[in-house]
Structure formats: C-alpha cells, structure tokens
C-alpha cells in the first residue's frame, strides 16, 4: 500500500510551520496509523532527515496521548476512536492523507504534531479531585450508590483527556472535557462537599486558559473516543446556575 502523507512540520513554538509531502510505500492495511508514521520515521532516519514528532503512550486507546488531526477529522475518519486505534485499512491505496496538530489557542504547538495540552491539567488542578480521606480501598458497599448514578458517573469518568473535543470544536471549547470531569465527581457522594466550588473554579480556569464558548455544534461528542455525551455540557450549565445561586 502506498500513500502520500501531507504532514505539518514545525520546528518549535515560534516557527511558522508548513505542510510537507511524504510519499510512503511498503505499508500494509494491518498497520495502525501510528505504525505507518513509525515506518515513515525510520525511512527519514535512514535518509538523515529530522523525524516527525508525535505523541503516544499506551497505543490501546486509554491514555489519550495520541491526538492528531487526520484528513479533516480529530483522530481520523471514524467517530469515537483514538488515533492509535485507527488502521491503514481505513484508507485506500494512493490516498493523500493530511496530518495536522490539534488547533486551539490554549494548545500551542510544541513541535510538528505535538501540542501542549497542560491547559486541561490546570483545569483539573482547580477542582478535579475530592478532599475526603481515602486511605486504603473502602468496603465497596459502605456508601450505597444507585446503579443509574454510578453508571452516569462512570460514563463521565471515562474521559481520557485527549483534547479531541477542543480540537474539533470550531470555538476550541473545552466544555465537554470540563463537564465530564465535573459531572463525574459531582454526581457521587464523595464529590459533594466541594461541589459548587469545583464548578465555579474549574469553569473559571477553563475561560482563563483561552478556550472558547460552547455553541453546541455537537462535533465533540462525535469525535470523543469515549463517547462522552454532549448532555454533560447541558448538565454542567445547570450546575453553574445552581452554584452561582447557592454560592
């Protein structure tokens, strides 16, 4: 299989950056997208050229490191999938594949396809934790939680912080991420003591980091590899209203 990659090359945060063409032969359909990039990098090493910088860690869809914008979609052409789970069989022989880094004011490019997503970490720092002493794992049934509540919290907790929601959003809004983190903790008894403060502080940080306003295009929930529902954002809005009124 042979494809042409058009890959964003940028030496550093201040470099202007540009798309560069790479014709790559010898790929197979069974290769993951990242393996295809690995293959290309090996060829570049042999040619004594600078390798392409991109991020990954687990390569099994759970760490959220591998965010890349591929052919106009966050994490490539499929809905609800990480880049590491994308395979070359999703493309055709002879395709041109445009590969760009996540774009957002709050995600400055570090190098090539790597962006700095620490803005998301700083949102977490403002309240994405609980203050209860945890110690060793408690007996599972000591705090009874209904299944519907547990399911909902678990669904929200599935967010892996990949940033695809921000990347795909025309407003670079981090509302899906932030709402997932807040709804996860606020719907459980362990998260109740600081629930209002969490809502106010985390959303304040979200604005401070330069993320945009959510206008409900719905693109985020399509691209989110964990299928976090956009209803989370509506619920966050209800929580903001409540937190503002109740302090």
């Amino acid at each position, binding site marked *: 299989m042979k494809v042409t990659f*058009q890959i*964003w090359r940028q030496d550093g945060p201040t470099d202007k950056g540009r*798309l560069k063409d790479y014709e790559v032969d010898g790929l197979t359909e069974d290769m993951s997208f990242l393996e295809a990039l690995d293959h290309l990098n090996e060829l570049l090493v042999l040619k004594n050229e600078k390798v392409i910088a991109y991020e990954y860690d687990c390569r099994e869809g759970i760490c959220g490191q591998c965010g890349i*914008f591929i*052919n*106009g*979609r966050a994490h490539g*052409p499929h*809905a609800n999938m990480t880049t590491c789970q994308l395979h070359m069989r999703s493309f055709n022989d002879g395709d041109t594949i*445009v590969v*760009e880094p996540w*774009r*957002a*004011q*709050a995600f400055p490019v570090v190098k090539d396809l790597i962006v700095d997503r620490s803005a998301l970490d700083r949102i977490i720092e403002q309240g994405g934790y609980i203050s209860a002493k945890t110690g060793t794992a408690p007996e599972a049934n000591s705090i009874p939680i209904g299944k519907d509540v547990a399911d909902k919290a678990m669904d929200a907790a599935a967010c892996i912080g990949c940033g695809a929601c921000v990347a*795909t*959003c*025309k*407003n*670079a*809004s981090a509302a899906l991420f932030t709402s997932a983190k807040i709804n996860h903790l606020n719907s459980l008894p362990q998260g109740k003591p600081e629930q209002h403060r969490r809502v106010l502080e985390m*959303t304040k940080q*979200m*604005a401070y980091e*330069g*993320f*945009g*306003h*959510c*206008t*409900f*295009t*719905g*693109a985020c929930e*399509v*691209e989110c590899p964990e299928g976090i*529902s*956009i*209803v*989370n*954002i*509506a*619920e966050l*809005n*209800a*929580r*903001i*209203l409540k937190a*503002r009124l109740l302090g």
Partner: protein
Amino acid sequence: MFLRKSIIATSGLFLCLFLIVHLSANFILLLPEEVAREAYNGYSTTLRESPVIKVVAYALYASIFFHVLYGIIVTYKNRKAKPHRYVVNRSQENSTWTSQNMGLIGMFILLFIVVHLANFWARVKLGIGAPVGLDSAGNVDVYEVTYSLFQNIYFVLFYTLLMIPLGWHLDHGLKSAFKTLGFYHKKGLAVVSKISLIYATIMSVGFGIIPLVVYFK
C-alpha cells in the same frame, strides 16, 4: 462565559415567542382582501395603542440588541480561541453546517430586520417616507403598506428567501438555548430537538409564503 451564553439564549427564546405572535397575526394577510384589510389594521392599531405592548416592544428591542451584541462578543472570543484554522476540515461529517455558521446566518437575519424595520416601523411609527393613509374605519392603513410593498417582486423575493436562514437559525438556536440554560434531561432534549425543527419549519414556511400569497392575490 455562562452569563454571555445565557443572555443570548434568554433573549433568543423571547424572540422565538414573539415570532409566534407575529406569525399568527400575519396569517390575517392570507384572508381575502375585504376582511384582511380591516382586521389587520384594527389589530395593529390595538397593538400600537396598548400600554402593555409598549413594554413588550421595549423588551423586544432590548432582546434584539443584546442578542446581537453578545452574539458578536461570543463569536469574536471564539475566533480568538481558534486562531489557526485546519488546512483540511471536514466539519460537515461531525456537525451540521448551520451549527457551524450561526454568526453568518445571524447576519442575514439582522440585515432582514433592518430592511423590515425601514419598510414598516420607520414608515408607520416614525413617519419617514411616503405618508400612510387611513382605512375606511379610520385606522392607519398598515395593510396598504404591506400590500404595496409586496407588489414589488424584489421585496417579495427578499422577504421570502431570507426566511430560509431564519429557519436554520431558529432550529439550531431553539434547541441550543435549552442546553445553554441547563436543561439536561436526555429524552427531553430529544423532544426539544424535534420541536425546534417543527417550530423552525412553521416559522420559515409561514413567514415565507405570506409575501408570495399577497403578491399573487
């Protein structure tokens, strides 16, 4: 952030309610000429003289003003949050064109409102342009203003065609307003989404056919 979006949502919802009343009254225009003229002029005179309507009118101006103002602020800030565009972006695969372009669509509607106010509000209330006569019942003949305007095919096309972006804007706007204001019941939102589409279709088609009907009357 939340405050700005809530202002857009609340003012938008108020404008949605207003459109229902506005369209209901405009359906009078579909009646045969003899009945329509008297009924329409009587209705608009009642409105103009009612103190309640005066308050509502100011709420209406305020809603339009803040809806546009915060629409511009939010659009500006959102653009700043996304300074680099993608070279290739297939947003049509994950969202509707309407939801991606509410600002642009809104500008068409604003253009419409300006022209519409110049045609009616400026003539009837401010007395700018050709003076408006009285009908046989002694009411200001707003019907005549409407009727003569829609003898001009360009105005008919303008009024009819611009109801298409209005429909798009209302469809996305109505369902989004609910989410912005914190309505998060999952099944409820599915219903809201259907209602938005039905509402937007009725408004768009309803307002859109009136100029055509008057033209061909």
